[in-house]
């Protein structure tokens, strides 16, 4: 009898093409997603060396980072952005890769459309030149971000040279209180283990609070694994997973479904499998969370106050906190609830799916965005946008004073015209509050979609539990 394996071990072992004596593996990559920002130089490399794409049909290409969220019937106004998107289109055509153009309803953020199309499936290895590729781990796929050199390596060989990561298990027990969701769970985890807590590891999320999540919620959790330092997050596939995949355009068809399902059911970690590290959290202890600083680990309950750097555990941390507070324009001791905002952003690969929009709309319904607040809702894909419109969510948002936009990454990283001005403070459903992330000098507070909607309406950071 073989020793018990984790979900990660099973996927890894079934994708090793070759293992060298020092443990370096050539790992087969089943699916590769490509976007405009991290691929142009990879295609140039292929051209220079006269190489082709090994498996075009295992690749999916879409533009998302640069695309404007308004005036989509016109050419992209920014020259550099337009050239980058046009370069992607040309490269997809030249190398024969499937591509969803901006005019296609299936266009959207790469990590939203993969699952939506059934391109993402349990047991696969999936990569993309984007750190939030961890999102796809919600399906029990080993999915991680790579740089441009590795994008080129995968295009040319459908493999990567890798060493196995360590296994970390994070168990979230019990059920969260009302007003606490997937975003709060992952922010709580990052707050506990820190932004480098998962470095060198793949994190498997387990426990009742994880199993009870929808696929959208699981994707939010896995998405931010990278903010805890882990290249990949994983959740064991179950009936929720299978029900989500069934019938999607690129999912296994009726003739192959039973075989695929039988395989997927063998993937969850074996009883007795061991992990290199283990963390347990109780969902009932998690409150709605908000970041106060410039690292996702700088997170506190909405009932908390801006911390005092004097209380930092070492000098490096104290300097980093002082710098963060200066950048954020905050004083120690200030209550988080009540900090005024100027902008509210709902969207991104973390929180741009239908369930996120429903959660925000439930708060926005029948209420008004506070005067002077700019509030954006950017659906994660054309199909999310259409579904939201079919459910009337666009009307809920626009009647409340939110802007209803076209799909893309938008203000999550401000490569398109949606950005913060210097000093402008935002409540955001995105994933990074780094200095300058949402625009030079912009000040970002990360939180859940419901909390961002609440902040937009209150005009300041607010406790969603006060919005019954």
């Amino acid at each position, binding site marked *: 009898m073989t020793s018990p394996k984790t979900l990660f071990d099973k996927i890894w072992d079934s994708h090793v*093409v*070759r293992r*060298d004596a*020092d443990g370096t593996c*050539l790992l*087969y990559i*089943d699916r590769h997603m490509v976007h405009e*920002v*991290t691929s*142009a*130089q990879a295609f140039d490399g292929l051209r220079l*060396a006269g*190489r082709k794409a090994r498996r075009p*049909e295992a690749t999916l290409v879409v533009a998302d*980072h*640069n695309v404007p969220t308004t005036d989509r019937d016109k050419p992209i106004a920014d020259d*550099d952005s337009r*050239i*980058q998107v046009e*370069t992607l289109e040309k490269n997809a055509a030249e190398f024969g890769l499937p591509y969803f153009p901006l005019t296609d309803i299936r266009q959207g953020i790469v990590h939203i459309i993969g699952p939506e199309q059934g391109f993402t*499936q349990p047991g*696969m290895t999936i990569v993309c*030149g*984007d*750190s939030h590729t961890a999102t796809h781990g919600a399906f029990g796929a080993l999915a991680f*971000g790579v*740089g*441009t*050199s*590795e994008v*080129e*390596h995968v295009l*040319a*060989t459908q493999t990567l*040279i890798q*060493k196995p990561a360590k296994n970390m298990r994070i168990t979230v027990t019990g059920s969260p209180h009302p007003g606490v969701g997937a975003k709060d769970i992952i922010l709580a985890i990052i707050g506990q283990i820190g*932004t*480098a807590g998962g*470095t060198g590891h793949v994190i498997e999320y387990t426990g009742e609070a994880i199993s009870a999540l929808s696929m959208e919620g699981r994707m939010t959790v896995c998405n931010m694994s*990278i903010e805890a*330092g*882990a*290249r990949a997050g994983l959740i064991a596939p179950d009936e929720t997973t299978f029900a989500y995949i069934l019938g999607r355009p690129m999912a296994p068809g009726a003739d*192959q479904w039973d*075989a*695929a399902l039988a*395989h997927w059911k063998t993937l969850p970690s074996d009883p007795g499998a061991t992990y290199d590290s283990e963390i347990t959290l109780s969902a009932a202890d998690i409150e709605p969370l908000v970041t106060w600083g410039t*690292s996702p680990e700088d997170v506190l309950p909405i009932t908390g106050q801006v911390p005092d750097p004097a209380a930092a555990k070492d000098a*490096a941390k104290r*300097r*980093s906190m002082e*710098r963060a507070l200066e950048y954020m324009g905050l004083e120690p001791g200030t209550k988080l609830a009540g900090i005024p905002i100027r902008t509210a952003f709902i969207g991104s690969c973390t929180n741009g799916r239908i369930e996120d929009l429903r959660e925000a709309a439930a708060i926005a319904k029948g209420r008004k965005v506070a005067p002077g607040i700019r509030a954006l809702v950017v659906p994660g894909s054309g199909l999310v946008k259409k579904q939201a419109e079919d459910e009337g969510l666009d009307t809920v948002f626009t009647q409340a004073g939110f802007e209803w936009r076209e799909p893309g990454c938008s203000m999550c*990283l401000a*490569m398109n015209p949606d950005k913060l001005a210097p000093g402008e403070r935002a409540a955001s459903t995105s994933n*990074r509050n*780094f*200095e*300058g*992330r949402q625009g*030079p000098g912009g000040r970002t507070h990360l939180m859940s979609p419901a909390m961002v909607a609440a902040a937009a309406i209150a005009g300041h950071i607010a406790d969603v539990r006060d919005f019954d």
Partner: protein
Amino acid sequence: MEKFTTLTGIAAPLPMINVDTDKIIPAVWLKTIKRTGLGPALFEAIRYKADGSEDPDFVLNKEPYRKAEILVTGKNFGCGSSREHAVWALDGFGIRCVIAPDFADIFYTNAFKNGMLLVKLPQDDVDKLMEDAEKGGNARLSVDLERQVVIRPDGEEIAFDIDPFRKNCLLNGLDDIALTLQKKAEIADFESGQKKTTPWLYG
């Protein structure tokens, strides 16, 4: 890929923790379709003032650090996005080696793919090298990859660990795509096996 064997040069101190890739190079620079020309964008937000002029307090704007080839910094350097532009910007400035207690995973891989050596050392050793780097004109460190040592200005040698495969690629400037393509037959064999066991992956 450019080889990395030994390097002796000015080391610049950047005593910050969790330096993220947005700080190394802001997203607006990612619109380029080239690898080159990103040196001026390195650390843009902390290197320049709002009017575009250099901030004289930032280390890389001071002599002799304008010619730094080594960067000594805090833990979790390169966290955040997968943008290889972070490595290209460091390289474009002239930095060929970064020394820190640890690095974010994706950044770590990206650096080695571009012939850049990242040296992981315990915090105490990084603290010593940080002090050396703060000595201005005397802030010259040597790095010998073959022997896996960093040599301080006073001659003390600090040994570091490195994965043998990465070391070999760097020392010889190997193109790992060419290496992998030598294993084409094994990849094809793997694919035929996978077509039998998990045929739905092939449509």
